[in-house]
């Protein structure tokens, strides 16, 4: 019995790939306005998808399979994390 699951896919640059957008946010906004306690900011892309699946685990597996099959991220430069919301 399938049901609809909400899944979040977060695509971000790998730690060794510079993230100039994150660097600009921390340098020119966050630190300039006194939020010195913030030590790092990395930007990324969030995809929220609704997917038919039999369980949370199944929803996660299907989403991950799609990410790899369609190359929703470039594994050379990006890492992804997939989490099931409901």
């Amino acid at each position, binding site marked *: 019995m399938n049901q609809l699951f909400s899944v979040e896919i977060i695509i971000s640059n790998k730690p*060794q*790939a*510079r993230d*100039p957008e994150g660097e600009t946010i921390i340098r020119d906004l966050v630190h300039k306005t006194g939020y010195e306690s913030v030590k790092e900011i990395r930007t990324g892309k969030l995809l929220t998808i609704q997917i038919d699946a039999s369980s949370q685990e199944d929803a996660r597996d299907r989403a991950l399979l799609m990410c790899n099959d369609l*190359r929703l991220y*470039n594994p*050379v*430069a990006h890492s992804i994390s997939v989490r099931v919301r409901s």
Partner: protein
Amino acid sequence: MRVAVIQFPGSNCDHDALQVLTNNLKLESKLIWHNDFNDSSWDAVILPGGFSFGDHLRAGAIAAHSSAIKNVRKMANDGKPVLGICNGFQILIEAGLLPGALLRNACLKFVCKWTNLRIETSHSAFTCALDTNSTIRMPIAHNEGRFFADEDLLNHLTTEGRVVMTYSGENPTGTLRGIAAISNEGGNVVGMMPHPERASDATLGGTDGLKVFGSMLKWS
């Protein structure tokens, strides 16, 4: 030599490439809509610059799954010259025909300027009419041209002679090792960020691009 130029929704350097191939180099050349590119009997194929599919998801990521790429892949495997220019380079990477990644420019700006390029190898379908270590001049115009790969891949590409062109002098995008163009193992598939079609007529300020396209004729 018959050369196909593939058009995607959002391609905008397709006519420029056709103009150079047809009028400047006098080659038989044709623009082909991506859905209609189902014939791999062409001698060479160009993936032109632009913003295919609006650059959504990532530049080149959606075009990389279009049916045209099946034939591009076949031609690449047959050893025929395949050139991706700018967005075309991004498509070749997203299609897995070339390794690495092209990330947003380090300066976070769309960089549009003339650059000097060093030819790192003349062993490619698009530099075999040029001398290794010579310098050519060509414009760049892109937002995502910062080549990225891990150290192992960078070393591999360097040792194998697959770094085809590097920026000479200033590095305009923060691209690793100054990389502006790379090739596949065979040297027949080349991706480059600079625009040879914008430097192939004296009226546009340079003709070095003609040697890039002209290399196809020498390649076998």
